[in-house]
């Protein structure tokens, strides 16, 4: 398995180039190539998760002798551990659903091979970011995914799309510059880039406190922008709805998590150290920003009439849940955050895809102009209702368990006020989605929509599949899924039941990379 780790990046990267090669002669090959690619990724991710193998794969690198000792300097280290496994599987599952949905949905767009190439590039960037073992490669993969996403937001090439993409690109570029500057500061102070090594150096106090503070602020601003935390959220409600529906699902479902949440978890917990000198203030910051995102996002979502904009604001709110859970700085909190990020990818992916279907059926995204769609489009309705129940936190769907877990983590950590805010937000989310369901799916069918009919099965089935996964996730949670997610949290927190420890990460990069 360990030798196969680079394939997570190479397969989608290769597929992206292949899509461009066949662009002129056989454009119909592009979707097939992409399908083969994501299915291979899915198989790899499932195998990796089932085996639970953890380890590093190192490309390049060299050994350096100085003063009689030989030290190995890893080249590009790709590290596969419990946390990476969760996100890799998530990327593979959601990408597959999105790709299948897009076969028919994208038929109305020009230049489809380019869409498939960019989609594959996006997947390659996200997989790479999740596997990157050092700060600079994390940055490079984040950029690959970001640049692909800027282009995909503008894919419709209408005024609205291009404008949203431009705005997104400007804020994204500022975020990237701050992340790179932060990496530069860390390198200047320690001479290290490997995340595990930097983490050890920071824990040993090998970096001046002001430098660490500046680097942390730059990372938080940069990754906060990518994760669309509340003061940095302005681009998301424009960019996510402007993209074609499958891309909205990719961006809201995966991108803000792999580039934002995953990178935050790795950097805050592994590099900067939540138990270190800055831990206390970081915790407060995460809790405050999280509460702001939770409440602000859901209140803004309540007021929207554009279905996709509403979903975009709700994404900000759900990311707030993840942030407050991370702010607890406990194993339970991290596990809850990972589980909620995972569930959000599944149900928000399904919701954005079903919003695309609903737009096709009703010819509008305006909630007030839709109604009674359940009568004419039963298959779309099943998927949309399943995903909505999940995001609203109705048992036994997965959203219920992860929100419950976040509340438990907050209350056991003694953060009662934040817990109360989170509970209130969960109720408001329920209200939002009940309102949407009532307006859009049930009620009276407008005269205008009498002749409309359901979307083809290749568009409704991926949504239903994601909704079913939400249900299965909820049912399996008490029956073993908790161990798997808990294992992912153990990759960064040592106070859990199984102690893999962050030290394990360091061991993997070093011992397994030391090959002749």
């Amino acid at each position: 398995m360990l030798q196969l780790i680079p394939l997570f990046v190479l397969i989608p990267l290769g597929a992206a180039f292949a899509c461009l090669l066949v662009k002129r002669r056989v454009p119909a090959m592009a979707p097939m190539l992409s399908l083969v690619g994501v299915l291979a990724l899915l198989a790899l991710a499932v195998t990796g998760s089932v085996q639970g193998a953890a380890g590093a794969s190192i490309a390049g690198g060299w050994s350096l002798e100085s003063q009689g000792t030989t030290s190995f300097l890893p080249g590009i280290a790709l590290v596969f551990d419990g946390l990476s496994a969760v996100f890799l599987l998530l990327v593979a599952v959601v990408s597959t659903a999105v790709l299948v949905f897009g076969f028919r949905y994208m038929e109305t767009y020009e230049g489809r091979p380019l869409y498939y190439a960019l989609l594959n590039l996006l997947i390659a960037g996200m997989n790479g970011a999740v596997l990157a073992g050092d700060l600079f490669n994390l940055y490079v993969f984040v950029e690959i995914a970001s640049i692909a996403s800027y282009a995909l937001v503008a894919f419709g090439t209408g005024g609205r799309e291009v404008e949203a993409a431009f705005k997104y690109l400007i804020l994204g570029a500022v975020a990237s510059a701050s992340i790179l500057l932060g990496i530069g500061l860390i390198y200047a102070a320690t001479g290290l880039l490997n995340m595990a090594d930097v983490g050890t150096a920071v824990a040993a106090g090998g970096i001046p406190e002001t430098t660490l503070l500046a680097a942390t602020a730059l990372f938080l601003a940069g990754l906060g922008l990518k994760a669309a935390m509340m003061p940095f959220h302005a681009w998301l409600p424009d960019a996510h709805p402007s993209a074609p529906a499958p891309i909205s699902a990719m961006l809201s479902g995966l991108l803000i998590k792999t580039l934002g949440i995953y990178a935050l978890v790795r950097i805050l917990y592994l590099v900067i150290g939540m138990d270190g000198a800055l831990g206390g203030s970081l915790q407060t910051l995460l809790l405050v920003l999280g509460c702001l995102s939770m409440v602000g996002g859901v209140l803004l979502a309540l007021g929207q009439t554009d279905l996709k904009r509403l979903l975009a604001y709700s994404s900000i709110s759900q990311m707030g849940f993840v942030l407050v859970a991370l702010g607890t700085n406990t194993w339970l909190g991290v596990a809850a955050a990972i589980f909620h990020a995972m569930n959000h990818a599944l149900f928000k992916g399904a919701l954005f895809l079903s919003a695309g279907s609903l737009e096709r059926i009703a010819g509008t995204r305006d909630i007030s102009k839709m109604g009674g769609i359940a009568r004419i489009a039963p298959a779309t309705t099943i998927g949309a209702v399943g995903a909505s129940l999940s995001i609203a936190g109705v048992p036994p769907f997965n959203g219920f368990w992860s929100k419950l877990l976040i509340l438990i983590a907050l209350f056991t950590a003694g953060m009662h006020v934040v817990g109360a805010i989170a509970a209130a937000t969960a109720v408001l989310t329920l209200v939002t989605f009940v309102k949407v369901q009532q307006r859009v799916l049930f009620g009276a069918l407008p005269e205008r929509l009498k002749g409309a009919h359901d979307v083809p099965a290749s568009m409704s089935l991926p949504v239903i599949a994601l909704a079913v996964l939400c249900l299965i996730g909820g049912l399996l949670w008490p029956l073993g899924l908790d161990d798997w997610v808990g294992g992912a949290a153990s990759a960064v927190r040592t106070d859990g039941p199984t102690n893999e420890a962050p030290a394990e990460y360091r061991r993997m990069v070093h011992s397994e990379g030391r090959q002749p």
Partner: protein
Amino acid sequence: MTMYVLAAVLFGVGLYGLLVKRHLLKKVLGLLILEHAVNLFLVEVGYVDGGSPPIRLAGETAAAFAGGAVDPLPQALVLTSIVIGLGLAMLMVALSLRIYERYGSLDADRMSELKG
């Protein structure tokens, strides 16, 4: 030290151009200045006063090399970062062209379809 100050000033100038200026091409220029401010900073991090280019000659010991040469790693980082910056700038110019086709203007305030 002067170089660090210069990098900080350029960073500020780039940020100002990117976020405050209304003309789209000025925003593109702002982005380029911002990126090169960071690149300058990275190169400066690896600079050793009076250091030689980081090319290890035949027969040179590792210790002698490490003592005399500037740090090669930031240079590798900057190369990568320049390529990424080029991609970003190209995409930004392409989007600006589309916006110009659409609105007949490069003034960000004339772009009005998205508010809030």
